[in-house]
Structure formats: C-alpha cells, structure tokens
C-alpha cells in the first residue's frame, strides 16, 4: 500500500495572506533565497587584495564568520566616513521622507518590496547612524527611528546594498539631491571592513589588481584575442587592420572594458573600434597593462577604486601619449569623469584632447584628458568625415538604452543617438520617462551581473524590458543598442526572457557595419557573419 500522504485542504495552498506583515520593517529579517543573491567573496581574492577577514563563507549559512568586535569596526568606520565625506553626513541628516524617490527604483517597481525604496534603503543605515551618532536617537531610540546594530541588521545591509545598482535614478527625483548611490557606496565600504563583499565583485577586483583587467587576461591573451578579431575583420572586409600594443610615442592610448575582449556581443563592438581607428589612420595604441576601463573597485571602496584607477594615467605617462580615448562602458565613465582627476590628477603631462581628423578641441575633457569614443565618433560624423552606408543596417529596427552612468553621471545623451541616426535608417526612442536622465537601469549594474542571481536580474531589468516591449510591439524593434559592457553582458539574457527576438549591440558595432572602408571588398556579412540585407547567398 502506498504511504499515506497528507494532502493540503482545498484552498489551503492558494490561501494568500491579505493582511500586511505583522512585523515592522525593523523587525523583519532578510531571508536568503537562492536566485536572489550573489555568492560571497572568496578567501583567496580578499587575501590577494589585503582586505579584512578573508575566509570561506556563504550568505546562505547562518554564521557569516565575521570577526569578533565587528560592531566597533563598523561604527568606527561610520564615524570616519561621516567626518571625511560631507555628502554622507548631509544625506544622513537631510531626508524629509517626502517619498519622491520611493517608486523610482527598478528593484522596488518590480518587487513591491519596501526595503527597495531608496528612502528605506538609506534608512537601513540611517537608523544605525541615529542610534550612535545623534542625541535624539541615543535618548529616544526607536521613537526617533533609531536601532541597534546587530547581525540581522548587518545581513540586511548586505542584502539590500547588493540589491542597489547605484544607478542614481532616484536621485534625479529627490528634491534635496540625495544620491542614494553614495549611500550604497558607503554601505558597501562598511561591509568590506568586516569582509562582506560578493564574489562577482571581489573576484574581478583581484584579477584587475594582479593582471590589469577584470577578466584576468594576461598580455598574450589580450593580444591573441585582438588578433583573432583582426582575422575576422579581414574575412569580412578584405582589409587587415594593424593594432599596436604598448607602443611608446603613440598619440592616443585607447582603453576599453575587458568585457569587450571576450564574449559576444562585446567582441563585435571591439572589432568596430579596430575598424574605425584603422579607417581614420589614428596613431593609437592598446595597453596590455592598463587593459581595463571598468573599475569594480568602485563597488568595493573609494580606496580600492583609486588603487585600480592608478594604472590609467601611469600607463599614459609611461607611453608618452598625448591623451586617452575610452571605449563604451558604463560605470567606467562615472569613475573617469568624476573621480579620476581628483585621485590622480591633474594629468599635466597630457594634452587637452584634439581630434586629429576634425581639429575639434574637447574642452569638456580639459582636465581629465580622456574622451569617450561616442563623443569622438559623433564629432567625426558631424564633420562628415566618415563614409557610411546605413542601408547595411536596414534589417535592424534599433532602440537605444541610456546606460545609467554615461547619461546621469556625465550627461552623454545625444552623442550616441547622433551616431545611431547616421548609421541606421530605423531608429525608435523608448518612452520619455524611461530614457535619457530618467533611464531605467539594466538591472545588473554595480557588479550584480553574476549568474547565480538570475531571478534578481530579471526583476531589476523588468522596467527597462517593459519599455523595450512597447517599442517592439509598436515599431517592430529588434535591436537594443547601448554603450556599456555590462549592458552587453546582461541584456542578452534579459531580452531572451522578457522580449525574445530583440538582439543586443554596441553602438560602435552598428557604426562599423555601416562604415565603408577605403579599399574594402564588397561585404556580404555583418560583423556577426550574418548575411547583410540583400547581399546574402542564403536568401
């Protein structure tokens, strides 16, 4: 006889709790469900970086193995940062709970979890600040919104500060300009003081520290990868481009995120850079030492970001270049545009970037001496310096995703659009409240594009995907263009889930497909070896 199984009563499984949770947010500890968090940082990586408390641990375990006296470490760390960063102190004191930010976070929008409201995410840390650093909190405790720092609070910080992508959409709507990204940044710094990071961040940071890039590619691998792209370019165009590496005396140093050197569709964007620079006859060099534009140190601590960023100016100095061009990346540009000059500038040994083709002086980079590939390219197009055949992209209906950091962090809004309009005949904008300064995050920025948190990524990216769906249904959009390596890594999965049939491309890949190079053979395929419209043999 089969064992007796206790079946649920009718309606039991479907029974939904209609009441709000019985516990206040302060009394609701975090649950760690697989698929919704990233693995913890590895012992070996923290050892490499000399970061505190290296040990094997898992967020799913009860015991996170934090060191004895961790509370003091965190509180002292907070005190230090409150005195060092005026912004942090102000953000802790100034919020009036108006709620303008509350429904602007993509994680909140997709989950309805109030702790994903930016205001409450900041409150996670503000409540502790109140308890230990304000009189009202010390005396009135919970009445004043203060609470003790304990292990549940620490776990909650870890969960929610690694659920914020530092996209800063909320800060656009905050009447006080509170920058939640900075609160998250400080939160992560504090967590790092007791050895709590995620593997997807500390792994790349350790790689970058030892090998110069997040993927840990050594010089021969970088050169080898680019060589194989050069072979592919020759197959497609009949032209052999000749990139150089670590060449002293070149005019320009080119630095891109290492994601462009490995994996699709990053490599096609990289092929685009190679083709464009060859066509222009640009006197530029790659570096196998400063081989990473991105900076996951930025998601660890200010000191770590500074440490990893150092190599960019150092390499520019060593090679004796005049200025630097950077590839398509997101957070890389927030670091370069807003922090690099403070950390390691002024770069007096470099010159203000001047386009050798158009003579345009990039005044905006007068201080940093580093310009974005999109501003460089848009300037070429404005001056009619490129021979373009946009019909090669006629099979594509393109929309453009503003990556959070270039758009909100440095105001790079129109340049990529100008390029796309020049190289594609079919371009459609997503709705107004989902683009430009108000763009929705891809859902995987700030080091959260690991694969173990796939559900979390699908949630975070839902508002973005929902806007793509709109243009997909209305205009038949089938290609999502962007200027960010994390977008290129994360979007293919997001599109497969939410909007099947929409591909992902870097803007420079679109450009290279339309670029008519001097002396090229008649192209029959694009950079992905797919038949060009009207040119393929298989049609």
């Amino acid at each position: 006889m089969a064992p007796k199984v206790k079946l649920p009563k009718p309606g039991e499984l479907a029974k939904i709790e209609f009441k709000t949770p019985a516990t206040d947010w302060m009394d609701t500890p975090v649950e760690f469900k697989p698929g919704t968090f990233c693995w913890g940082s590895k012992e070996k990586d923290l050892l490499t970086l000399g970061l505190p408390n290296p040990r094997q641990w898992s967020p799913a375990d009860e015991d996170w193995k934090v060191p004895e006296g961790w509370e003091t470490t965190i509180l002292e760390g907070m005190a230090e940062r409150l005195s060092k960063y005026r912004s942090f102190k102000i953000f802790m004191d100034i919020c009036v709970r108006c709620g303008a930010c509350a429904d602007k976070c993509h994680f909140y929008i997709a989950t309805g979890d109030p702790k994903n409201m930016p205001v409450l995410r900041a409150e996670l840390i503000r409540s502790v600040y109140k308890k230990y650093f304000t009189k009202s909190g010390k005396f009135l405790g919970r009445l004043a919104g203060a609470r003790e720092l304990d292990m549940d609070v620490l776990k909650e910080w870890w969960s929610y500060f690694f659920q914020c992508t530092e996209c800063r959409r909320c800060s656009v709507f905050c009447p006080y300009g509170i920058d939640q990204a900075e609160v998250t940044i400080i939160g992560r710094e504090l967590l790092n003081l007791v050895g709590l990071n995620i593997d997807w961040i500390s792994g790349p940071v350790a790689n970058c520290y030892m090998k110069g890039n997040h993927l840990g590619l050594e010089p021969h691998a970088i050169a080898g990868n680019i060589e194989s792209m050069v072979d592919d370019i020759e197959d497609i165009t009949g032209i052999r481009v000749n990139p150089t590496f670590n060449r002293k005396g070149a005019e320009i140093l080119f630095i891109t995120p290492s994601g462009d050197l490995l994996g699709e569709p990053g490599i096609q964007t990289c092929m685009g850079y190679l083709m464009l620079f060859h066509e222009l006859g640009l006197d530029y060099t790659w570096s196998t030492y400063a081989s990473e534009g991105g900076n996951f140190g930025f998601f660890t601590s200010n000191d770590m970001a500074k440490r990893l960023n150092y190599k960019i100016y150092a390499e520019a100095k060593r090679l004796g270049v005049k200025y630097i061009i950077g590839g398509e990346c997101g957070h890389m540009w927030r670091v370069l545009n807003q922090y690099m000059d403070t950390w390691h500038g002024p770069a007096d040994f470099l010159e203000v970037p001047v386009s050798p083709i158009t003579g345009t002086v990039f005044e905006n980079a007068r201080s940093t001496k580093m310009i974005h590939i999109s501003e460089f390219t848009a300037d070429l197009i404005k001056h009619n310096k490129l021979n373009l055949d946009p019909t090669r992209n006629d099979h594509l209906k393109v929309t453009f995703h503003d990556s959070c950091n270039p758009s909100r962090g440095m105001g790079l809004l129109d340049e990529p659009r100008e390029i796309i309009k020049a190289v594609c005949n079919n371009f459609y904008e997503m709705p107004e409240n989902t683009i430009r300064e108000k763009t929705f995050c891809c859902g995987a920025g700030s080091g959260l594009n690991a694969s173990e948190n796939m559900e979390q990524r699908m949630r975070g990216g839902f508002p973005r995907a929902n806007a793509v769906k709109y243009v997909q249904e209305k205009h038949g959009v089938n290609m999502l263009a962007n200027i960010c390596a994390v977008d290129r890594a994360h979007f293919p999965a997001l599109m497969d889930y939410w909007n099947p049939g929409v591909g992902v491309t870097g803007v420079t890949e679109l450009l290279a497909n339309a670029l008519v190079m001097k002396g090229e053979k008649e192209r029959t395929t694009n950079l992905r070896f797919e038949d060009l419209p009207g040119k393929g043999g298989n049609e």
Partner: protein
Amino acid sequence: MDVKFIGIFNEKKSAISSRWLDAMIASYPNDNSGFLMNQKDRFANPVGYTFTIGIEGIIEVLVKGEDFSESVSFLEDIIKVRAIQDFTPAKAMAFVFQLKTIVREELGKEIRQNQIYDALLDFESKIDDLALTAFDIYVKYREQIYELRTDELKRMTFSLLKKANLMSEIPDQEFEHKDQK
C-alpha cells in the same frame, strides 16, 4: 456557452476584473503604499499594468467563449512576472483558481435565480483548462531561468573555446546534408 450566463457575466465583468486584480495585488502584502494598484502609468508601474491588461484580456476571451488560446499571451505576460518574484509555485499560480471563487461569489445569486448551474460548471472547466496551460507556462519560464545561466556562460567562453580548438561549428551545409539522409 449559455447565452444567459454570458449576459449575466458581461454585466458583472468589470466587478469581476477588479476583484481579480485586488486578489492578485493582495499577494504583495508588503506593498503598503498601494503603489502596484494606484500608479497607472504603464512604464512607471509595469507589474500593475501587466496584471491589469492581462486580467482584462483573459476575461474577455473567456466570456466570448472562444478558443482560449487567444488568452495565452496575456497569461504568459502575467506568469512571466510571477515566476521571478518571491513566490512558491502554488502562490505564483493561485490567481488562476481565485477566479473561480470570485465568479461564484459575484454571480451566485443570478445563477441560482436562472437555474444555470451547468453553464457555471462549463465556465469553471474553462478555468481548469486555463490553469493547466498556466502550469506549462510557469514551468517553461522557470526552466528558462536556468537556461539563461548556461547560455550566458556559453556566450562568455565561446570565442575562447573556439580559439583553443576545443569547439568547432558545424557548417550549415553539413547540417543540411545530414538532414537529408
């Protein structure tokens, strides 16, 4: 389907839709501020919008009595969202069955008065069909989450494996040749 039943149903359609939406939103007890229900902008509140449009679409198809395959896309849109949120499978799918209760409660009096129990049973069978389809969809998207992870790994490593001669593509022609055999 019974004409009388359809008539009664049509009269109460908007009440049924809104109760169904209420029940679905109630599965987000943390949403104290009523954001999912109250924010009507489809881009500012994609979850609420997807549910509202989905519910209306499904009810429209059910009441027309036509092939319910037309409602599959609405069902898909809703389930896609629920499949990646913090729900057990039962809780993610409960909304389909809640429709039964809502319809019985909303139309109970009229059904008794008009003696059209058979029509109600017919209608409930349709909801059962809907539920079975919903299971397929739910599992499909749960499986896809794991596929996305493996696909991503392939995208990241494909060029390396190819370069190391550890992987080679089968040209199209060979494929066609083999297919013909």
